[in-house]
């Protein structure tokens, strides 16, 4: 088994590198500890100004209710709209709620009360989500006497954005490290010239590629384990499904990414070129695979495009297992697709690796 000698070499080189082994540990630690706290799309602490023209007990009750929610910070209550407008123009507040003077009358009669919400939509997401939160508080308030609508958020009952992001962050880490490092490894051998010494030897392409794949495959599984442990220890968030399913799908996905890295290194003659191509694809993988934005809200053409990218399936499986507790049987079509990608990309990588120019 000649591959034994190549693997020995790869591992020795990996651990002798002053930087890469440290990065493999520190990078996931840092990302999993810090990023979930930052990338939060929940809107909290919106500054709000209320124009209370009614000044009744009902309007005061509504104001209290809004003030009590942790989504809003009541800046001040004024009686004229122009005063509130000045506040929003000065940037002191994010939204205005205007309660008309006939508010209490309508409430007691059970007719439509007039309430106007104006939100600063410079940050569209904040404005939009803020006003819809506000609307739901008002609906709930006015509905106290009428029929109330109940919404239940399945699988993520607290609508905790962290739970949505954590599986995605694991995916990002695996995309980055398992795609980039093999590409750089081979291109480095090309630049230094040692690859030629391997190409002039009778070793087969398959063994050469496998010797490059296997170390990064193991590295990917180590990164995954670090992530799972941190998420469990720090966020008390464990997969609802089985760890076995998570490891199985990750084994497939890491092979896809490393094969992809090798594919890129085959067509790149310099480090710069390889880096540029890898980053181009990383960008596409991250933005079009449903990592941040839901797959179903993409335009039709983007959904078709996204379906050709392996990360789309991986992120869906990771979220399903982590949040819904899905098992292999529920997910087998996606497993099959990923297996297809493993075969396709690695076959392609072996095919494009040239021992001869």
């Amino acid at each position: 088994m000649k591959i034994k000698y190549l693997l020995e070499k790869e591992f020795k080189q990996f651990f002798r590198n002053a930087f890469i082994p440290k990065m493999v540990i520190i990078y996931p630690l840092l990302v999993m500890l810090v990023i979930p706290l930052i990338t939060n799309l929940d809107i909290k602490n919106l500054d709000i100004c209320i124009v209370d023209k009614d000044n009744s007990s009902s309007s005061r009750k509504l104001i209290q209710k809004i003030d009590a929610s942790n989504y809003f910070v009541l800046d001040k209550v004024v009686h004229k709209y122009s005063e509130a407008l000045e506040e929003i123009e000065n940037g002191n507040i994010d939204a205005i709620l205007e309660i008309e003077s006939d508010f209490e009358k309508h409430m007691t009669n059970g007719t439509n009360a007039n309430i106007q919400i104006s939100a600063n939509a410079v940050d569209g997401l904040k404005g939009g989500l803020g006003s819809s939160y506000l609307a739901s508080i008002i609906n709930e308030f006015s509905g106290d006497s009428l029929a109330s609508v109940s919404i239940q958020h399945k699988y993520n009952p607290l609508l905790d954005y962290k739970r949505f992001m954590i599986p995605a962050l694991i995916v990002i880490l695996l995309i980055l490290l398992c795609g980039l490092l093999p590409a750089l490894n081979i291109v480095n051998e090309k630049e230094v010239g040692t690859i030629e010494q391997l190409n002039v030897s009778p070793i087969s392409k398959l063994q050469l590629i496998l010797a490059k794949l296997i170390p990064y495959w193991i590295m990917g599984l180590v990164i995954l384990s670090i992530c799972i442990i941190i998420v469990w220890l720090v966020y008390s968030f464990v997969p609802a499904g089985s760890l076995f399913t998570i490891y199985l799908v990750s084994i497939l996905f890491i092979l896809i990414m490393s094969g992809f890295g090798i594919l890129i290194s085959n067509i790149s003659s310099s480090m710069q070129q390889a880096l540029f191509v890898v980053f181009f694809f990383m960008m596409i993988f991250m933005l079009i695979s449903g990592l941040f934005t839901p797959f179903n809200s993409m335009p039709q053409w983007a959904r078709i495009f996204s379906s050709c990218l392996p990360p789309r399936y991986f992120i869906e499986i990771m979220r399903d297992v982590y949040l819904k507790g899905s098992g292999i049987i529920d997910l087998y079509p996606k497993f099959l697709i990923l297996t297809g990608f493993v075969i396709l990309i690695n076959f392609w990588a072996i095919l494009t690796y040239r021992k001869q120019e």
Partner: protein
Amino acid sequence: MNNNDSINKVIKVENLTKKFGSFVAVDNISFEVGKGEIFGFLGANGAGKTTAMRMLCGLSKASSGKAKVAGFDIYKQTEEIKKRIGYMSQKFSLYEDLTVYENIRLYGGIYGIKEKDIKPRAYDLLENLNFLDKKDALVKSLPLGWKQKLAFSVAVFHKPKLVFLDEPTGGVDPKTRRQFWEQIYEAASRGITIFVTTHYMDEAEYCDRLSIMVDGKIEALDSPQNLKKQFNVNSMEDVFHTLASKAKRGD
């Protein structure tokens, strides 16, 4: 040529050509190299020496012509050729972040030397080089001359029929070059054919036979003595200048 002669030829090249687009890097060259011979490939930078050598090693695909290396066809049997040759490239070819012994072990392993044989053979080699105490030193810590000696030893570690050396002594002083050539002679005496490209004239003098390439063509091919006689000059330097001055290609 009698049959016996033909068997003893390790390299046979006929009208070998390599084109990159419209640029003809190697233009219709033909030559033969006998067993145990030290065959020098001389030429200015860009004359096509390295390209010609890379075709024979199976690293580069020939555009046209015929060639056999160690009896195998360079188009169809490159993997058979690769088992039987050693190669030391212009670019330094050992792994700098592996130790001396680890490098020998790696190349021994991928050329199919048995696990139990690698260690004793590696220790023999290092002892002959007077290098045993440095076996656990990282290659990057060695001086260039030592790296080159080691690279050569690694290239012949699997006992190839012939070894290709592409400007093996670039960047070292004449004394170190001299020592390197002692190693080459020693290998040749064990029956290993040496195919070496160079542009150092003192090295040219050490070769049994020389071919001088100008603009992708072989302009002269004979022993150093005969070449000097043929061009009626006293040194290889003058032979080379007479021929190289005809070159149209720049560097």
